[in-house]
């Protein structure tokens, strides 16, 4: 028995769109976008104390770091020959270090190098990690197997020690530091994205997207990836905090960035020799800046988590 064709319904139904047709109401370059983004940022900032403090700290570091040359006229490499280890004064706000360089100028100029390295490294690891995680989660199979085993090896021993070994072995210091931090961050993003994909892969809407003939890449990118964003944003803040910490830890041990380049870890290393004789300022001030920036990122991570998941706490 055949069902009678419902000609009326078939005629009135909209024709099936071709696979890959973009949704009708996406207007990418609306002029109101930046305004909406600013409003969103403001709403986030005022949502909690942590959000406000975290955003303020990070924004302050970004602005001061970008404008360091304008804001602080003292050259971070200038040696004030007669003023070795001069305590904080009106002339040198944070005092001078063992080479007679101005600690304040060095601390401020170090923001650039620490931020640029961390942001670059985390950006690389997000791109690589999310891409690999999407494929591993969606495709599975041997690719996923191999990838996960490699990640096991990478995460099997303390990250800091692996980083030290890599950077010490190579001569290109800044590139090596970026490379190794990205390498250590990639597993985090792979595991996170893969986990998200596994829980979404069989969702009804993904099935629908597949049924209408979307290519796997398109499904991964347009349908699954956007839903992995919230945890990704939280993890980005966490990893930025961690990366800043690793950059300076490496320099502190004496691999990677070296004195006289203004970098917090290197400065703390250089100043550590004078701590026991009471000259605390060459190592305390850069450490304070380092801690403040890491704290800023950590606050942001906590606040974003609360903001996206108000149920918790």
């Amino acid at each position, binding site marked *: 028995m055949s069902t009678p064709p419902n000609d009326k319904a078939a005629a009135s139904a909209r024709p099936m769109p071709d696979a890959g047709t973009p949704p009708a109401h996406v207007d990418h370059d609306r002029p109101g976008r930046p305004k909406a983004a600013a409003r969103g940022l403001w709403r986030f900032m005022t949502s909690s104390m942590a959000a406000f403090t975290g955003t303020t700290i990070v924004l302050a570091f970004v602005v001061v770091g970008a404008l360091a040359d304008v804001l602080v006229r003292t050259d971070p490499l200038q040696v004030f020959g007669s003023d070795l280890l001069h305590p904080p004064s009106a002339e040198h706000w944070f005092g001078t270090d063992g080479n007679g360089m101005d600690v304040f100028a060095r601390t401020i100029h170090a923001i650039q190098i620490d931020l640029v390295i961390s942001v670059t490294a985390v950006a690389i690891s997000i791109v690589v990690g999310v891409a690999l995680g999407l494929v591993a989660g969606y495709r599975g199979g041997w690719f996923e197997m191999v990838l996960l*085993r*490699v990640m*096991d*090896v*990478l995460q*099997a*021993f*303390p*990250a*800091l*020690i*692996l980083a*030290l*070994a*890599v950077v*010490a*072995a*190579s*001569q290109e210091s800044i590139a090596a530091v970026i490379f190794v931090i990205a390498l250590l961050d990639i597993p985090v993003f792979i595991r996170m994205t893969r986990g998200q994909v596994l829980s979404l892969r069989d969702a009804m809407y993904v099935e629908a997207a597949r049924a209408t003939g979307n290519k796997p890449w398109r499904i991964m990118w347009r349908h699954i990836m956007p839903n992995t964003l919230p945890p990704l944003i939280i993890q980005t803040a966490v990893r930025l*905090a961690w990366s800043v*910490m690793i950059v*300076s*830890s490496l320099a*502190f*041990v*004496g*691999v990677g960035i070296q004195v006289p380049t203004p970098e917090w*870890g290197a400065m*703390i290393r250089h100043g*550590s020799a004078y*701590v*026991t*004789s*009471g000259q*605390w300022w060459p*190592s*305390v001030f850069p*450490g304070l800046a*380092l*801690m*403040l920036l*890491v*704290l800023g990122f*950590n*606050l942001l991570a*906590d606040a974003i988590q609360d903001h996206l998941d108000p149920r*918790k*706490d």
Partner: protein
Amino acid sequence: MGKGLGRYLLYRILLLIPLLFGVSILTFLLVRLGDSSPAVMVAGPTATLEQIEDIEAEMGLDRSLPEQYWTWLTNAAQGDLGTSWMSNRPVTEELWEKLPITLELIGFGIVGAIIFGVIIGIASAVRQRGLVDQVLRIVTLAGVSIPIFWGALLMIAFFFTVLGWAPAPLGRVERGLELPPHITGMLVFDSLVSGYYATAMSALAHIALPALTITLITGATIAKQARAAMVETLGSPAVRYARACGMSERGVVWLAFRNALPDLIGFFGITFSLALGGAAISELIFSWGGLGQLGLEAITNADFAVVQGFILVMGLLTAAIYLIADLLVAAIDPRVKLQ
């Protein structure tokens, strides 16, 4: 559980083999990635190119990488990890000697961190959103954000330079004191057992600052996790039901803690592996002379054999901790079954 436990242990140990294999290949390649060659360092700054090449040949560095790795692997399988060019001693012997020194420091630090972290975490979670919680949250977040090497320097600046309470950060014990016979290699333990009380007191005074640094900074991480886990279980239906039945507040907290414990033990494992790196750096600051200092100095001096051995031991330690954590969780959590 007897037979199942044996089989599970065997399975985990077998799983370790490919992992350590991977770790060793990775480190082998990584330390040889760059241009820094130990031969150049051994030969000194005035050496000619020929002398350097001679030394390279002697150390086996002129052979191909797979050949070098194969030699290393076959030797390592027999317990020979090569010779350090810095001290000219077998790596295995050096690692074995330094291991207890580091374990003692980490032991004190981590045990302190767990006690401190769990207490703070519970106190914070019980008074969720109250004043105590707010203050503790800020303090823990600040603690999490302090790099351990800077924290160690602050401790020295405060407790040694300003207050003069702590001894100088130069090793494990006052110079000139009689050392106890070697039993475990852990100085505090050895001198207490052998009755060297003056040495024990001095060793305790020396371990206080580095251990306290690890305790405070690692403890902050644990406190953060403990708070989150406790908030979760305190709000769980089981705990709410117990409270509704009229269980005392102390009983409720204990129940919530019991339920959070499996998660917490998992966290302890992860935190411990993080603390290994931090502990290595604090060893450097306090001239502790343990595994961490040995490894970090080997890294900056391109002492390949020591670096390889050091990273291998670190990998083994991490794996052992994860295994212990998993076994503990299986022992206390009836929902978890070893497979």
